[in-house]
Structure formats: C-alpha cells, structure tokens
C-alpha cells in the first residue's frame, strides 16, 4: 500500500526538509521500517528501544489516533495519510 506520511518539523532534518513523504507497507510498523531505510535515524526518534512507539509520539491515520486502532499493527490502505504529531498539549 502506498501511503503519504506527514513529517513534523523536528524530524524534517532527517527527510531533507520534506514535509510529505511516501512510503509503502501493509501496517504502520512496515511504514516505520521503510522510513528508517529511507531516512536513517527515524526509528530511534519514533520508537523506544523495545520497538514500541514512544509515549509522546502521536500517530494518526486519516485523522484517527492509532491508539484507537491497533497501534503499530494498524492496517493501512492505499492512499492513507499517516500524520506524526509531537506530544499532545492542551488541558
């Protein structure tokens, strides 16, 4: 599945300032692996040593928080938009 990934400002040093990159994968975990392959260093920024998403990295698929879906195992469809968002603020 080809998906679009929205990269937040702090991670654009890894993507050569690209805000939107494309990736391919059946699940979010696949996409993270592919981002790491294309932009080395990305995995460390998104995931803990045990491979889980970092506590304050929020990932949305088509606007839905992946914690409402299946986390890294969330399945993706062709053309989905994956957004990576820093720590939720507010409250």
């Amino acid at each position, binding site marked *: 599945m080809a998906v679009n990934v929205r990269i937040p*400002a*702090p991670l654009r040093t890894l993507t050569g300032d690209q805000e939107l990159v494309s990736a391919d994968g059946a699940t979010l975990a696949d996409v993270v692996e592919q981002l790491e392959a294309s932009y080395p260093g990305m995995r460390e*920024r998104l995931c803990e040593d045990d491979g889980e998403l*970092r*506590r*304050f*990295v929020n990932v949305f698929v088509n606007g839905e*928080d992946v*914690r*409402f879906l299946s986390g890294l195992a969330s399945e993706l469809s062709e053309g989905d938009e994956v957004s990576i*968002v*820093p*720590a*939720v*603020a*507010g*409250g």
Partner: protein
Amino acid sequence: MSFERSLRCRECAREFPLAAAFFCEFCFGPLEVAYDYDAIAASISRESIAAGPATLWRYADLLPGDPEYRVDLGAGFTPLLRADNLAAALGLDRLWIKNDTVNPTWSFKDRVVAVAIAKAREFGYTGIACASTGNLANSVAAHGARAGMETIVFIPHDLEEGKVVGSGIYDPTLVMVEGSYDDVNRLCTEVAQSKPWAFVNINVRPYYAEGSRTLGFEVAEQLGWRTPDHCVVPMASGSLFTKIWKGFNELHEVGLIDEPRTRMSGAQAAGCSPIATAFEEGTLNFRPQKPDTIARSIAIGNPADGYYALKTLEETNGVAAMATDAEIVEGMKLLAETEGIFAETAGGTTIACLKHMVERGQIAPGEETVAFITGGGLKTTEALQGGLASPLHVPARGDAFIEAYEARLAPAATTAGGA
C-alpha cells in the same frame, strides 16, 4: 527576579533554552521549566511570602518569568475553608475545601493564564490564544482584554451557555469548533504552527502549567506551612493534579515545609475517564476515550499529562475514582447544601469521587483531606435543570404564602392528602 533556568524534557531530560516551545525536539516528550532551587531558597522565606500580595504573585520567586510583565486580575490566594458539615455527611474528621470558584473568571484557570500571559508578553507576543473546554477560554479572554492583546479562543461547539457567554463578553475572536475538545486541541496545535500567537496551553504550555503549583503553595501556607494527609483533585489533562504535588515538593526543596507525605487522589467523570480507567486496570498506559459527560470542563479524552498523573497516583499511594452524571449532580448539590459553595460539574465530580473514596475505605476517617473545587457553578446550570426543588410560586398575599410554606414543610402529608 526570576529563577527559571531552562526547559527540560520530562522524558529524556535533554535541556533547551527558555523559549516558546513545549516538546522535546528529540523524543517529543513534554518540556517543563527547570529552576535554580538553591537561589530560590536563598531568596525566599515564609515571611517574604506573607508580606506579598494576596494573589498568586506572592509566590513570584517560585514562578517562571519576570513578574513585571504580569496582567493582574487578582488570581489566586483563594480561601481554604474548613468543611465540617460536609465532613460529617461523608464520615471524615477533618475536611477542607480549597475554593477556587472565587477567582476573577471563576475557575482555577486564572492561575495558569496569569503566568502564561506574563511569559507571552515577555517573549514579545501581541496575540494570545488557547484550546479550551470553556473555563480556560473565559480566563484567556479576560486577561487578553485587560492586556489589550489580540485574543483568539477555541472551544467545542456545544459547550454550556455560561461558558460561551463567559468568553464572549470580553469580545475575543471566539471560535466554536465542530468536534470534541480533543479535536479543538489538534486544530490549535496546527494553527499554532502558522500563526504568531501564544497559545497558552500549547506553545507556552510549560510556563502555563507552572501556575497550577500555586494551588499547592497556598494550601500548604494556609494550613500553617504543612501539607494535608490527602488531596482529592479533578483530573482532565492531569496537569493540575501533578502540579499540586510538584508544588508541595518544591516548598520542601526550598526549605519552607517538611517532606510532604500527602496521598494524591484524582477524580474523573465516568463518561470521560481515561486516567481513572487505566488506574483501575493497573497500567500507566491509558487509552484515549471519546468523552460523553456533563462534566465538560474535564472532558479530555486524550489527556496530555495522563501518564504523569498515573505516576503521581502510584508514587503517593493515591487512588482514582469516577462519578456518573447523576452522581456529579448529587455532588454539586451536596457541596452547596452543606457548605454554601456552588461548584460547576467538575466540583460535583470531585465531591462524588471523594464520597466514593471514603465509602470504599480508600480515605480513612482520620485522614485530613483537602478537596479542590476548581470552578464556579453558574457556568454549568444546564446540569441542574429539573434537579432542584421547585420554588414556591405564590400570589402576593400573606395567607397564600403561609399556605404554600406550610405545605412545603409537610410534603409527605400533602402528597398523602392529594393522592
């Protein structure tokens, strides 16, 4: 004189310069203000605080930012009231109400906004904004008006009328967003990247959040420079809850009180209980929820400080509880009828959860407890529709009044007679 030194990531401890920033560039963790506590200890004393103003600015040495930039509506230093009637009703020996309904815009949010707007002005911002469940918007609108700043406040589209009017009166740009608070929050995070505004609870959130510590400072000072056995606090993002505990610990750090041993317990509405649910499940990883409760001011389904609130519960041996909408209304009424304090739904939640905790033996009768009542009830009158005793409607005649009054005094007899 300010003793703030840097912003520090709460997750990985990387340090950053003091700026309008709220998350760690490396791990995306939230940033918190770091202070030079030795310098504060050398500057501050119980006497210097007592000589200060009867507002939160009496703790200026413990707050970030230069107080020269403050916009003072008189927030803070609200009454700590002994609540013997409510204590008796609940089965506690000693209960206090920290009555934060009497702030300038009738909620504790005046504390965080006072600190945030001072810092925003220090950074040179001319526009002030927020994502709000209602109370924060009221406070930002009021402080923004007084400061003469461009003011833009974002709220969910379906808030209580009192919360909407309570912002509108100050004539901000009031934005009602189709969606829940969590949607408002996400929209504002996006807007904050393109507009040159200080969003008090987004890009200047590290400073804003520090304002809540003043509730802890005040309770300790008002108890005669000591901390209570137990605190019960409403939890929305979880920030207030964690900052009261931080405030107690900082007073100890700078030598003003003994080491706090307070148990910190939190209250949520059953219809939005990500933190209380995670607590019940014994995990520090909450799952976001889609809120459905009358306690709109604490209806945050994805709480920014949920993890830290759960850590504080664990660290202090506190408990979390949740209250149904019906229990929340009963809590509002109980507080009003026993102590003369009219709280909004969040206060009803706190009292209802306090009641649960006592009934379950989670708070022992002998534990000196402080319940934090953080917002005033006139903003959420919708919750009480049909829930109060109906007034006596009488013609302007003495005999008609006496008849109606006596009928009210003997409702059982009236009912029996009418049946």
